[in-house]
């Protein structure tokens, strides 16, 4: 029982990341009809927004401390962050400590701008081209973006920790009457899950309860008719591309304390997120979210020793096995709509 609960909880945070990325992918596909293989790179750039802000907040000036020496035996240079010099060590230290949550504010305009530039500068030229062309160009763009990040930040992972108050874990099992250490769960992963739920809820509310969202939904259902009504749907879809980029970026920002970001992390998530979109149903937002959480949890279960003892290597293939089974039994995915990608 405790093992099941444990892996369910693990699957929730993994599923949160899949769901957020898949949500953005589906938004872009549903509105613009573009299969965007650069979406994982947007997740990665979001995480590097957190790294960048963390570095900005720790920009320092150097003073020579004659009592200490560096690795060459010269007088050591001591670095003091400007933030600590301006606001005092305590307040400055707290600001630096909260770099990741603060990066949310930093990342939103940056990611919207990147999404906007990407759509206007490159992707709009491929709207009427075959999906294969779109995949090639966006995949190429993803590689360019990750090489740019590697050039500036290097290939090694960069630790970007959570605020001190969210470090460590709590005994979830004891809260529900289980033995000590039966179900341990890190605070930040819980934060990530609730953050993802908030973003997903926000996107759905935006689409459901605003006039803009209503037009976008109408455009997703029948672009031509909306255009005939005199609405500039292209402009609205461009904004949606920016929003989708921001969703992926925010997913990346908040993921940095879970795994130290590196230039390749977008690619690690991209393929799985595409499977999530296909399993959920191309163009279906609820399907993407449902499939994201479902596959995250299944992946967690597949890495249990008891399961691996029965089917060795299942942890590496479970998502693809489930995808095959679902596509065989429900060819449009869990919540796919008729006519999407069927022509």
């Amino acid at each position, binding site marked *: 029982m405790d093992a099941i609960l444990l892996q369910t909880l693990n699957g929730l945070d993994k599923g949160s990341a899949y769901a957020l990325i898949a949500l953005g992918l589906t938004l872009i596909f549903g509105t613009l009809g573009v299969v965007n293989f650069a979406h994982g790179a947007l997740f990665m750039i979001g995480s590097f927004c957190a790294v960048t802000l963390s570095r900005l907040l720790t920009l320092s000036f150097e003073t020579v401390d004659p009592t200490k020496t560096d690795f060459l035996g010269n007088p*050591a240079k001591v670095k003091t962050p400007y933030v600590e010099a301006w606001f005092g060590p305590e307040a400055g230290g707290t600001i630096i400590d909260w770099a990741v949550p603060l990066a949310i504010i930093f990342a939103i305009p940056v990611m919207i701008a990147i999404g906007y530039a990407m759509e206007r500068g490159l992707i709009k030229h491929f709207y009427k081209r075959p999906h294969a062309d779109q995949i090639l160009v966006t995949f190429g763009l993803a590689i360019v973006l990750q090489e740019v990040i590697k050039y500036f930040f290097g290939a090694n992972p960069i630790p970007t920790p959570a605020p001190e108050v969210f470090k460590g874990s709590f005994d979830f099992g004891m809260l529900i009457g289980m033995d000590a250490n039966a179900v341990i769960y890190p605070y930040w992963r819980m934060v990530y899950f609730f953050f993802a739920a908030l973003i997903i809820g926000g996107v759905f509310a935006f689409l459901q309860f605003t006039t803009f969202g209503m037009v976008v939904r109408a455009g997703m259902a029948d672009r031509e008719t909306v255009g005939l009504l005199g609405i500039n749907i292209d402009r609205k879809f461009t904004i949606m591309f920016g929003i989708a980029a921001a969703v992926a970026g925010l997913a990346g920002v908040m993921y940095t304390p879970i795994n130290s970001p590196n230039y390749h992390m977008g690619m690690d998530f991209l393929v799985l997120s595409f499977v999530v979109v296909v399993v959920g149903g191309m163009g279906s937002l609820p399907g993407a979210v449902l499939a994201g959480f479902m596959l995250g949890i299944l992946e967690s279960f597949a890495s249990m020793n008891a399961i691996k003892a029965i089917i060795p290597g299942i942890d590496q293939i479970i998502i693809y096995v489930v995808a095959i089974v679902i596509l065989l039994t429900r060819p449009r995915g869990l919540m796919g709509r008729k006519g999407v990608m069927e022509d």
Partner: protein
Amino acid sequence: MSKTTLTRRGVLRSGAVAGAGVALPTIFTASSAAAYTNEPTGSTVTLGFNVPQTGPYADEGADELRAYQLAVEHLNGEGDGGMMNTFSSKELQGNGILGKKVEFVTGDTQTKSDAARASAKSMIEKDGAVMITGGSSSGVAIAVQGLCQEAGVIFMAGLTHSNDTTGKDKKANGFRHFFNAYMSGAALAPVLAARYGADRKAYHLTADYTWGWTQEESIASATEALGWETVEKVRTPLAATDFSSYIAPVLNSGADVLILNHYGGNMVNSLTNAVQFGLREKEVNGKNFEIVVPLYSRLMAKGAGANVKGILGSTNWHWSLQDDASKAFVKSFGTKYGFPPSQAAHTVYCQTLLYADACQRAGTFNPCGVGQALEGFEFDGLGNGPTLYRADDHQCFKDVLVVQGKENPTSEFDLLEVVEVTPAAQVTYDPDHPMFAGGQLGTCNPGA
């Protein structure tokens, strides 16, 4: 009277044989002009540095490349001479190798075996490299070592820690200065027993490839010999990025030590995840829960940040060592580049000097002569204390460092501290040890 027996089928067969002969890659065929592959005939000799310049180990590859460039400078008499001044052999005079100026070409392994073989092949065939060196992965090292054996050039391995490199996959043309997984286990086990006691239960998470397997086997064997019980061995996919689902069950398993047989990005992520799950703050079986990372790298430790604090592991060399050789290397490298060298930089610098010195002593670049000079060679003054290049398997035997993540680092480089220097005798094993069984060195191949 003679009878002509030319037939259409015979002509075709002969043509096919002749065509195949012409098409055979030149590196696998004999040349009547040269005594061995890429024999240097001019005033220069070319070495091939095959390191990851792209991909996940690119930073490690960049540090290796810096060290190679430094070694070439020193061999050619430029710079301060670095460890050439402390090296026990005094054959190198700063005038290149055997009077020929050292030049180099580089290749990008991408940390992929096929790409590494392709770049090594190109450096041998097109650039005339007489020796290939480098790599930051055991899979790559084994693949390139095999190619060099076929091509008839010496391979001086870079960062490769799998037992197999000088075990079942050893080759006469291949030589390894870096330590191996068995040595990590032999060095770490006594320190683990002293720190954590002899009554412990260990849980292994292991990267599912050649290096991970030999590391797991080595550490489990060494700790079980102390009386530790191995509770579980779990293999994790090399491509895994989130290890939470593998780490979550650890506390419930009865284990009180987690051993992470991971390297690179795997190590950074699994250690970060383990610390997130609060394992180090827990008490199991009445003891503090402990984490061990058997193979440490400073560059990787940097990626894990504060999570490495207090965690034990082993390393081939560390810049904080205070022997004359290490200080000379750190000064030379640090002055040129502005930061201390990594263990990867150290081992490739040593390999370059060792190769050059062997050529000098042998009086030739012929791989068989160079190999003979390296076999059984005893030396000192390269930062690891007295060292033997064992003839039986071409593995260096030297002291191994047990290190610990530093609690209060004084700089961004000051991440690890040496807690024990394990003498070479304690990490030495028989050439026919079961963990290294299954392969033969064979005979050296000079190529041409």
